[in-house]
């Protein structure tokens, strides 16, 4: 078998047996027992399902995942007295099996929700389906486990697609690598794999099915391919050499730890890390990031049943603030919408979510959500060297409206004599082309800008960055795109703004000379790219 090619989204190598994480399927209906027996089976199934969710929750507790809240809601649904009473009533009155009765009860509430006008409540149907699958499984197979039976020995995790909570629900030490049929550089799993430093190759396609659980797999997540141990002896020898070379390179990079980032001619630039929450802080410190150039706060808002409260947000932001010491941190207000869907937000289905209600647009449409986040941030960042920026700004009016809300929040906090930070830098993400041409107008209101190259490129070239069919149009070497970047940086520097780049182009080897020549002040990237980039920059004669 030839090596299977995918996208390397998190660097590294792994050699281990494949483990497929699969959805469980229901067995065919078993024969109906006595009424008492059916009722007993049902109640045991509820207990087993609840036990499963509690075990998952226990594991998630340590990784501080947002999925924890979703599980809480699901446990409550499982134990709901109406759902349980209705099922038991049906078993007795209609003389039917526990499976049929539970299905009926679930269908009853599903129809109820579907007939409601509220889109948010319509989506509760998904929660009902989720819990009912597990309960029905246990009614059918009380002695089997619905939880994935994970091997005791470390493995490479295989799946069609993964949710961040899937990864978080497995012991980190057991996952040596991740391989998925779906996914891309910017999917959530990619971001999570990088921050947890798990080698990962995504977007392999359905040929991946050819690899069976238990087979020994060699994963090269530097070049993005994998193959079977049994497939070709020659590649196997090469693999060991590659791993050796890679680890010696890693050693070499340690030389760059604790050093300034500068070119061979002594020109300095700041290398910062992108983070999504407290769980990334260890990797930030390990990889010697000089600052945090982008704190993506949206991960706190995803994969959950309802919006995080101000207090919950405050606690999480405070954890980050406590760990960062005196390094500078730039926080981006929540950028949800687009590819990052959340059911509790009740966003209408959009034809073009990337061009829809996301980033600052969504915050302006839901000012209470926005204000709660601003309050939590201002309170958590007391005494910190920090910056605040808004995502997806496309006009000056939009920015001024957001700033007005920020001012209201500050006045409100002053009035309540709550301790908060009033000293911070204010900036915007430059990721919508219209803003790139308005540095003159924006500069008097700003301290800094940060170029989000992923979105800026997709909007400039009109190419969906998640659509593999237009992957070659989504090309950072597009001359128009490079000119746009050059224009923005020059204009911003003319107005003496601090300029950062925080998209995945920030560590592109080919673009580093251009960024440094233009006078970019800060490059922000996944922590694992920092030391390699510092090395590359040290070799530049600029």
């Amino acid at each position: 078998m030839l090596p299977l090619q995918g996208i390397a989204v998190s660097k590294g190598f792994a050699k281990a047996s494949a483990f497929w994480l699969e959805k469980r399927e229901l067995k065919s209906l078993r024969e109906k027992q006595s009424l008492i027996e059916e009722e007993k089976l049902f109640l045991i199934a509820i207990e087993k399902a609840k036990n499963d969710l509690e075990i998952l929750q226990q594991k998630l507790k340590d990784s501080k995942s947002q999925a924890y809240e979703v599980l809480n809601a699901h446990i409550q649904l499982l134990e709901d007295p109406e759902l349980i009473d209705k099922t038991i009533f049906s078993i007795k009155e209609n003389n039917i099996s526990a499976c049929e009765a539970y299905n009926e009860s679930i269908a009853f509430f599903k129809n109820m929700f579907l007939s409601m006008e509220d889109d948010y409540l319509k989506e509760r149907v998904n929660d009902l389906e989720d819990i009912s699958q597990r309960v029905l499984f246990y009614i059918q197979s009380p002695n089997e486990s619905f939880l994935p039976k994970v091997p005791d020995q470390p493995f490479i995790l295989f799946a069609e697609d993964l949710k961040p909570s899937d990864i978080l629900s497995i012991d980190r030490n057991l996952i040596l690598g991740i391989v998925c049929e779906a996914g891309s550089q910017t999917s959530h799993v990619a971001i999570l794999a990088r921050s947890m430093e798990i080698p990962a190759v995504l977007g392999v396609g359905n040929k991946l099915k050819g690899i069976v659980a238990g087979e020994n797999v060699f994963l090269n997540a530097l070049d993005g391919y994998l193959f079977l141990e049994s497939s070709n002896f020659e590649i196997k020898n090469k693999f060991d050499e590659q791993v050796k070379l890679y680890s010696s390179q890693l050693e070499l990079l340690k030389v760059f730890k604790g050093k300034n980032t500068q070119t061979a001619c002594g020109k300095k630039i700041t290398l910062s890390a992108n983070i999504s929450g407290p769980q990334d802080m260890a990797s930030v410190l390990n990889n010697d990031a000089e600052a945090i150039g982008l704190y993506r706060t949206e991960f706190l808002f995803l994969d959950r049943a309802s919006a995080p409260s101000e207090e919950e947000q405050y606690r999480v932001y405070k954890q980050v603030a406590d760990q960062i010491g005196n390094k500078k941190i730039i926080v981006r207000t929540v950028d949800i919408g687009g590819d990052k869907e959340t059911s509790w937000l009740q966003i209408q289905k959009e034809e073009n979510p990337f061009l829809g209600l996301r980033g600052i647009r969504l915050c302006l449409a839901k000012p209470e959500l926005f204000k709660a986040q601003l309050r939590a941030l201002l309170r958590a960042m007391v005494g910190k060297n920090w910056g605040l920026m808004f995502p997806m700004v496309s006009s000056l009016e939009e920015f001024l409206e957001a700033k007005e809300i920020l001012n209201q929040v500050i006045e409100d906090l002053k009035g309540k004599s709550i301790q908060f930070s009033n000293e911070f830098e204010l900036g915007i993400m430059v990721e919508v082309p219209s803003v790139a041409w308005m540095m003159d107008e924006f500069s008097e209101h700003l301290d800094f800008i940060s170029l989000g190259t992923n979105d800026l490129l997709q909007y400039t070239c009109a190419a969906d960055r998640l659509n593999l069919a237009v992957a070659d149009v989504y090309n950072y070497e597009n001359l128009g795109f490079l000119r746009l970047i050059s224009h923005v940086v020059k204009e911003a520097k003319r107005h003496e703004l601090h300029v950062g780049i925080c998209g995945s182009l920030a560590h592109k080897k080919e673009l580093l000379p251009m960024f440094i020549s233009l006078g970019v002040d800060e490059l922000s990237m996944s922590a694992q790219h920092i030391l390699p980039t510092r090395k590359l920059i040290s070799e530049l004669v600029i």
Partner: protein
Amino acid sequence: MEERKIKILNEEGMHARPAGVFAKMASTYQSKVSVLFNGKAVNGKSSISLMTLGLVKDSEVTIQVDGADAVELADKLTTLINNKFLME
């Protein structure tokens, strides 16, 4: 039996979190709880049933609590609704 008429104050109405918090509190007491709205009465200890009432901001509901600890629970549930379901 304790009966209270209360207006829902929070923006989202009876969504999953508020319904969950309400049902959880009701479940820790002995008394029976019914929530009445629009000619329909549901079990106040069932978050799923509470959601099906379709309560939005400004909906006026009636809460009926019946049992030994009815007064205390009725008070607690009233406070909860007036605090927009916030519990820290």
